[in-house]
């Protein structure tokens, strides 16, 4: 259980490889089934707009899961991600247009911590707007 990236290999400012994912309505259905989160705002346009949302929105945890993927792929061992926290600042609206929404993830090492751990800060956007804020991972290197 060890990351491929070594603590000595990184410094504050080290950038993670960027990642772009596409999220379609089909992805929302798949994530609903896998996660057990069947909240109607993630699949029913009528209810989503009735409660004041711009349309069907992605599960926040789908977006957060995609963002975490950028960290685990970089670290080389998903078990190295020991803490992860996100704030959902803006919904990812997923149109029913066959194209879906793009989620773009960028990350950089923001702090070196005790015990060969680092804090990675993530910037996660969709349509040019930040959809997660304070998205942070602590990684054991």
């Amino acid at each position, binding site marked *: 259980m*060890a990351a491929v990236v070594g603590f000595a290999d990184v410094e504050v400012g080290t950038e993670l490889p960027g990642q772009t994912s596409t999220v379609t309505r089909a*992805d929302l259905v*798949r994530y609903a089934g896998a996660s057990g989160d069947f909240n109607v705002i993630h699949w029913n346009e009528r209810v989503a707009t009735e409660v004041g949302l711009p349309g069907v929105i992605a599960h926040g945890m789908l977006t957060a899961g995609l963002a975490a993927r950028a960290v685990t792929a970089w670290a080389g061992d*998903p078990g190295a991600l020991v803490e992860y926290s996100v704030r959902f600042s803006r919904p990812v609206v997923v149109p029913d247009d066959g194209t879906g929404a793009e989620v773009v993830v960028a990350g950089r090492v923001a702090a070196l911590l005790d015990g060969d751990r680092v804090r990675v800060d993530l910037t996660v956007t969709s349509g040019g707007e930040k959809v997660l804020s304070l998205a942070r991972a602590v990684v054991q290197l």
Partner: protein
Amino acid sequence: MTLDAGLVGRSYPPSVVYEVGREKIAEFAAALGDPDPVYRDPEAARAAGHPDVIAPPTFAIVLSLGAGNVVLEDPDVAIDYSRVVHGEQKFVHHRPVRAGDRLVATASIEAVRTVAGNDMLTTRVDLTTEDGEAVCRTSSMLVARGTAAEGSA
């Protein structure tokens, strides 16, 4: 539907045992489009030092969602689920969740707040093995959007 500050600290009985299966982990990884073999291939997982396939770091949400429903079903927690959006989420992993784990989830209310007509409820869920080994702690903040508020996450 303002939440009572007296709810903070309320804890709920432990869940029934959830047995983590390889197929469920693979299904969750597929839903994230994540091809990492440590989520699917026991040999690859063992080569990386894990006893069996491990789950993506956000997999714990599956258990914390289930355990969190106990809180939403509490008659004292009057929240309209159709108006609920996820505000914040945190995971602290003591070790990765892995196939074969028999986990128990214990929910408690960590914080309640009302801001600008929105009720905010933070639920903590502690995941342990049935033998009591700490595996993961999750903290989920849900926002019940008030009628006056415009959408945020």
